[in-house]
């Protein structure tokens, strides 16, 4: 990220870059890409868990942003607006993949039934992971747990926990209400607490 900021000339304000983009300046758009490509790629990768797919979806998202930047009115930050595109592209892709795939990798209705809102997150009976567990294994466990969430739940918890986004920013990015964001966050946390209890208790 340090390198990104240097390359992107942070003295140039974001709104100036956006205005230049709206006038057709593709170099200004390159600057915006440099600023956000790592975060965007990281966010998508955390949702789809495949580097090539994340690369393609990040490219698609930026191309869509370039084509529709004329419609950006500056009511939110460019980043929030960009996130909305990213989320649309990624969630659509995950949904299509779900339809094409073998079955319900995630299902909101099933998930909500499975989780008792009042349930205490109980420690799992499984053996605790070894202290020598490789980082790759840890990552795999987390990815596997996240893969059990619906695309919308993944998006909400990742935006909140890894991006530190506010409820209203997440709501804007997903085009839903703040109440929906909080509710999804509740169920996503419960689910991940159940699945990853042994991991975060022992890392």
């Amino acid at each position, binding site marked *: 990220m340090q390198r990104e900021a240097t390359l992107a000339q942070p003295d140039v304000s974001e709104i100036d870059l956006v205005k230049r983009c709206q006038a057709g300046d593709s170099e200004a758009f390159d600057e915006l890409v440099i600023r956000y*490509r790592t975060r965007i790629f990281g966010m998508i990768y955390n949702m789809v868990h495949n580097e090539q797919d994340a690369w393609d979806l990040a490219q698609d998202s930026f191309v869509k942003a370039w084509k529709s930047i004329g419609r950006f009115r500056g009511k939110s930050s460019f980043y929030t607006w960009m996130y909305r595109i990213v989320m649309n592209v990624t969630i659509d892709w995950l949904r299509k993949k779900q339809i094409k795939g073998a079955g319900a990798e995630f299902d909101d209705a099933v998930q909500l039934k499975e989780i008792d809102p009042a349930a205490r997150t109980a420690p799992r009976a499984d053996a605790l992971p070894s202290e020598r567990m490789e980082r790759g294994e840890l990552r795999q466990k987390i990815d596997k747990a996240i893969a059990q969430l619906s695309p919308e739940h993944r998006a909400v918890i990742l935006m909140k926990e890894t991006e530190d986004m506010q409820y209203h920013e997440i709501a804007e990015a997903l085009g839903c209400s703040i*109440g929906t964001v909080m509710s999804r966050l509740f169920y996503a946390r419960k689910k991940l607490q159940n699945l990853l209890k042994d991991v975060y208790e022992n890392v």
Partner: protein
Amino acid sequence: MFMKTFEEKWTAWLDGELTGKELVEFEASLPDRAAAEAERLDAKKLGALLKKELGATTFANEEFFSHQLSERMARDDAAEDRHDERSTWWTVPRLVWAGATSLAMFVLFTVVVMRDKNPGEQSQYLSQIMNARVDPALSPNASVTMFESKEDRVTVLWTEGLQSLPSEYAAK
């Protein structure tokens, strides 16, 4: 922020977003405060784990990513330009055809309507007058002139020097 459901309030409480009266009321409503605090600690640990493990996603070949993106954008822009040109090329003949068709229909319509209207415009009496002849023996200096304005649907018959009105001029 007005929260309606337990889930919303719980989430806000976990994230430290619940304040004032809402906070007091919510904490008072918890059946087991110690369990709730333990749950909150769990959620914080989960958040820290996700941030540490997922927040550090590396992005290899980022320069190539930008390069590939620029090329794709340029390619897409060029394709759009070509499409626009093609659209313009198609539009011109389409406009010409549309114009020609409209004109032909207008002409056809006009001819049909005018042909239908003309026979009815000339009255039976006027036909009789036009066909009548002035007898040169009876009225040697007689002249009959007709002025007709089809737009106003008016016909004026101007006669001069008639000694007597021919019987054919009389309306039956």
